[in-house]
């Protein structure tokens, strides 16, 4: 299968200062060390690990919302370390969909308008926007709730709107950071089934971070992180350490 994401020897360090503006003393914390990861198109991949293991950092780097301290990341063949901010934004806009732990819907927009947003910033025509929004909401089973604002939706419904928003522009890759963390078991299971179904039906590539065992049960490939290092990848290890 075609390689979609290549993470090659990527490290990410964050500077910490002592909070004194006059005499700053910088120290660094390493969030990710020499990470390598190869993801093919159509995969359903979980990044697992305890809190602080570097899951979100790795997703941020793959999603081009952060830059690695060293190493390089290729998304759909594009070396993101060489991109200017504007080109990074274009790459995110066109090729990546995001699902966040806290849903991050625009509160003043209805569900349909939230789903429409990625198409708005791609300046897709209004007629096409309407049909694609309807299609995306249909695929997450929320057509009937299209005109509700997020505050009138349940947590599960909000996250399904977020999934619809992430797929409406037909991205090559969907990144989900702890998508079930704020959901109860019922809604979490529904969301997992939904994401898995979209992966199977539309061939969408999903990379998500989680330490939710329920989600991991449905996942064929699990990459485990610990203290910023990839400690296992069952596609390489044959599942022995997964």
């Amino acid at each position, binding site marked *: 299968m075609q390689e979609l994401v290549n993470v090659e020897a990527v490290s990410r360090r964050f500077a910490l200062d002592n909070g004194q503006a006059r005499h700053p003393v910088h120290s660094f914390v390493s969030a990710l060390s020499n990470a390598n990861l190869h993801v093919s198109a159509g995969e359903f991949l979980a990044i697992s690990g305890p809190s602080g293991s570097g899951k979100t950092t790795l997703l*941020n780097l793959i999603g081009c*919302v952060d830059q690695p301290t060293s190493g390089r990341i290729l998304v759909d063949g594009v070396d993101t370390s060489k991109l200017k901010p*504007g080109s990074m*934004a274009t*790459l995110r*806009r066109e090729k990546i969909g*995001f699902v*966040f732990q806290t849903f991050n819907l625009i509160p003043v*927009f209805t569900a349909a*308008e939230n789903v429409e947003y990625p198409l708005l910033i791609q300046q897709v025509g209004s007629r096409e926007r309407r049909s694609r929004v309807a299609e995306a909401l249909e695929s997450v089973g929320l057509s009937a709730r299209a005109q509700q604002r997020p505050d009138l939706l349940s947590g599960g419904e909000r996250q399904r709107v977020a999934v619809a928003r992430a797929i409406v522009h037909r991205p090559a890759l969907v990144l989900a950071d702890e998508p079930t963390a704020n959901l109860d078991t019922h809604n979490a299971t529904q969301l997992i089934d939904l994401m898995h179904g979209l992966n199977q039906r539309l061939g969408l590539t999903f990379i998500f971070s989680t330490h939710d065992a329920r989600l991991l049960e449905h996942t064929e490939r699990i990459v485990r992180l610990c203290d910023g290092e990839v400690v296992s990848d069952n596609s390489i290890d044959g599942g022995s350490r997964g």
Partner: protein
Amino acid sequence: MAKFLLLAFRNIFRNRRRTLMTLLMVGGGVAGLLLAGGYFAFMTHGLREDTINSGLGHLQIFTAEHFERDENRVLDTGIDNWRQVAASVKTGEHVRGIAPRIDFYGMVSNGAKAVGFMGSAVDPEAEKSLGFVSRIETGRDLDPKPGGEVEALIGKELAKSMNVNVGDGLTVLAMTSDGALNGVDVQIVGIVNSGAPERDARYLRITLPAAQRLLQSDRITNLVVGLDSTENTDQAYFEMMPRLNGLPQRMELKKWIDLATYYKQVNSMFNGIFLFMGIIVFFMVLMSSVNTLLMSMFERTREIGTMLAMGTPRAWIVALFMLEATLLGAMGAVIGLAAGNLLGMLLNSSGLHMPPPPGYSVPMPFRVRHVPVQMIGSSLLVIVSLALASILPAIRASRLRIAEALSHV
């Protein structure tokens, strides 16, 4: 674009209390400017019409020589055949009437005391037809065709200084056009209170034939043209100019505004005060809005991070914040316009009076004019102020680090 506008509009009402406070502040600023500006406009408009109707007229015709040199003798730069000049312009569009005038000066004496005066000689009928009514406190206006003695109106302060009243006599002394001293006895028929004490201390008015006899000249100083409306002054001016060409004497036409020095001073003073108030409102809105918009930006950090993560161009974030501020300014302006005009109407019907303006002794009624230019100007002022106030928050929002913004609590 419509959705973007909708997003901006809805964002305004996310924090209703804060939006309400901002709208009240912006609206209050606009309403305050409208009330102050409307009152100034009423004052200047009143002064303008008062200045014109107290005898200045809308246009005045002089000889060109009048402005080129000082007179060596009285009326030696005056208009010779003024009836011919008047005939050439009286058929002009918007012309309501023409009044001949002589400006002269001299001494007035009661036998015991002599005081200088600045006199004017008029055709009472022409003056009356143009609505140039002297503010006669006691007595009556000049008779157009007096039978016996020469009639005179004098200022209230001059009458007080000369210790005379209606029915008393005075002697008016002036230099003739030949350079000789001449005198005429006049009977006071009216005491004038123009509202300006300094003017009233030198005020003397007699009829045109009496002045021509006193000065021994058929000339006049100028012709005063009254129009149907002050707003038609420019049009009448340009229409009248060619009519004055080809006359025996070179003529010069002046608009009322060129001759109304006091009006111009008062007008520029009010404009200065209004500008100063506008600057205060501008900075008041700017400073308080920066803080409000920064708070709004901080509250929406995660949302902005999400929008940026989805690939929203940073320029769009700047535009969104500026659009929100501009909409807020426009809404505040609408509220201010409504409140300002409503308050203006209430004040107009209240019958309030204000102390007299500088140089006047008569209290001014408190009225507020509704001036479209001020409404547009005040609205633009607050809209621009809010748009400028949004620049800093907008730039800060657009420069957020996405990863940090997404983890903002």
